[in-house]
């Protein structure tokens, strides 16, 4: 029996709501805070939220890139659970080198190399040994977190350098340096993934690997590249984190779930419910504005976790609905 027009329209309505509704919901949340929370719209406050979002945002960009290249199925698609641990290790490497008197060039270079090395390891295991990314990056996460413990002995390593000082307190055009870093990294990755043949092929590899292979695209090389980008994002976020905390601090692994949540939440901002850097940026800012608005409204920030959970459930439910669409 053919479904009645009403039944057929239901999932489409859901998808439509999801596609257009996400931005509307974002706007509505901002409106509520603008009306209810004192000083929410003050330029200084908005700039602060941008800066506060830098660490999670850049980590989530890395994860998003991996999801684009590996497909968005949580169990079998692209996933990098080592991003937060990578940040921890990279920040510890930077703080250690800085405190040991290595110059800015060596410190920055070796920190970036640390991030890339983690990406390289993930790429080798996932592409080379064909292990499921969920398990492969879970293993590398533990390895990297262990290396961080060896380096820091699980203590805070205070550190100060002109770079960290500039990142933490630098301001350009009234906007903090960390906000520029977030926007800069987002712009670069949007250019790379949305506007270049590489990005187009990465999407093809992630969504239809067989078709991409048949079309002559080097599938494995692209997936490998996505892990390298994610590794680099880990060390870029490490600079932001080291600036934020004046050195390396423990507990970076706690960020992982927020990063995963943001990356998947980001899909609701794309018209075809696919992962995108722009969507992830919006999701990062949404979470950042919620934390900020809740504090200004004097509501416990723990509600943000609950609300984030509800939003993710909504994404999962609605993307399930949209898959059933004929």
């Amino acid at each position: 029996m053919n479904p009645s027009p009403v039944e057929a329209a239901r999932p489409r309505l859901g998808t439509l709501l999801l596609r257009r509704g996400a931005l509307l919901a974002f706007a509505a949340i901002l409106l509520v805070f603008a009306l209810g929370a004192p000083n929410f719209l003050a330029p200084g406050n908005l700039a602060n939220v941008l800066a506060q979002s830098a660490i999670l945002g850049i980590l989530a960009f890395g994860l998003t890139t991996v999801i684009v290249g590996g497909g968005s199925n949580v169990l079998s698609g692209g996933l990098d659970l080592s991003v937060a641990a990578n940040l921890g290790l990279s920040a510890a490497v930077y703080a250690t080198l800085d405190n040991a008197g290595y110059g800015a060039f060596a410190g920055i270079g070796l920190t970036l190399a640390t991030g890339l090395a983690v990406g390289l390891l993930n790429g080798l295991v996932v592409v080379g040994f064909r292990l499921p990314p969920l398990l492969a990056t879970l293993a590398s996460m533990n390895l990297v977190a262990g290396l961080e413990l060896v380096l820091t002995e699980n203590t805070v390593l205070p550190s100060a350098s002109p770079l960290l000082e500039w990142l933490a307190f630098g301001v350009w055009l009234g906007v903090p340096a960390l906000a520029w870093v977030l926007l800069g990294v987002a712009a670069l990755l949007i250019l790379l993934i949305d506007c270049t043949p590489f990005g187009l092929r990465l999407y093809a590899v992630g969504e239809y690997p067989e078709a991409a292979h048949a079309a002559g695209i080097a599938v494995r090389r692209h997936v490998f590249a996505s892990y390298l980008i994610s590794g680099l994002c880990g060390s870029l976020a490490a600079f932001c984190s080291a600036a934020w905390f004046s050195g390396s601090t423990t507990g970076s692994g706690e960020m992982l779930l927020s990063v995963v949540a943001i990356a998947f939440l980001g899909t609701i901002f794309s018209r075809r419910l696919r992962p995108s850097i722009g969507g992830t940026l919006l999701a990062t800012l949404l979470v950042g504005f919620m934390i900020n608005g809740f504090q200004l409204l004097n509501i416990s920030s723990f509600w943000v976790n609950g609300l984030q959970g509800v939003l993710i459930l909504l994404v999962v439910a609605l993307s399930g609905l949209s898959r059933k669409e004929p």
Partner: protein
Amino acid sequence: MNPLTRLRAPLRLLTLFSLLLGAAPAPADDGAQVPSLAGKRIAVSMTGTSHYFDIKAFQAQVDEIKRLGGTPITLDAGRNDRNLVTQLQTVVTQKPDAVIQTLGTLSVIDPWLRRISAAGIPLFTIDVPSQYSLNNTTSDNHAAGRALAERLAQDTGGQGNILVFNGFYGVPVCAIRYDELQKVLAARPGLKVLQPELRDVIPNTVQDARAQIAALLNKYPKGEIAAIWAAWDIPQLGASQALIDAGRSEIRTYGVDGTPEVLELLKRADSPVGAVVAQQPELIGRTAVRNVARYLAGQRDLPKETHVATLLTTRDNLDQVNRLRGDQ
């Protein structure tokens, strides 16, 4: 005769002395003459509210602000540095009449405390000796740390190996207590800290400390460890549980805070708890708020630090804790 019984009388004198000593810089006040906070918004910024000390200090601040007619803005970072820095940034936007920051790793929060101070918001602290703080309300951790370490040295007869939890040296009060331990040990070459030092963690502090000590008890048979020291008493709690599990009654534990579970352990016949410095988190919280009220009423002669009395608690003077805190 039990050596503890023999020592009871001098110990009582000692603890009474430390009580008086600790009380001296912070004259007890009943709060009757504290200026009103009517119309004032006071931000209570907590590093976390998951332990006895935090919860009591937090609740006391909120209650005292309300009692004085003010409005508390409550902020809890849930023991997460990222949340803590974010909340300290956003609090500048909230423009409260004053901020009270409780605990935190100094190197992480100090740059952001500077921002609050630079924004013209009066900044007060609990257990954070920041240069930007107008007044820091705290226990005299030098005296408390020294008394605890000396008690450890006395109980062990100045001989043996000590396991030390030193995971939070970045938290100033922990650093002071640790340094006092080292000073006391320097004068007693018979006492040695086993290397590597142990790292206490947050969260899962109790379980983690219990597991670490349980493993080390297998490594070091009877007679090889004399005592276990921690800068606070939540790892001490885990360590004590591990000692009870393993039946290693020859080892004693030492820590700071006076968390009810640790005081409860002190009551056991073969308690592994050697001593715990009991703090008065409620009085610390109330005192910080009263200092804010005085400052906002124009009293600008506040000392840089206000000390609140502590009590070196052993099984012999357990009853004095209740009297000291007056809240149990």
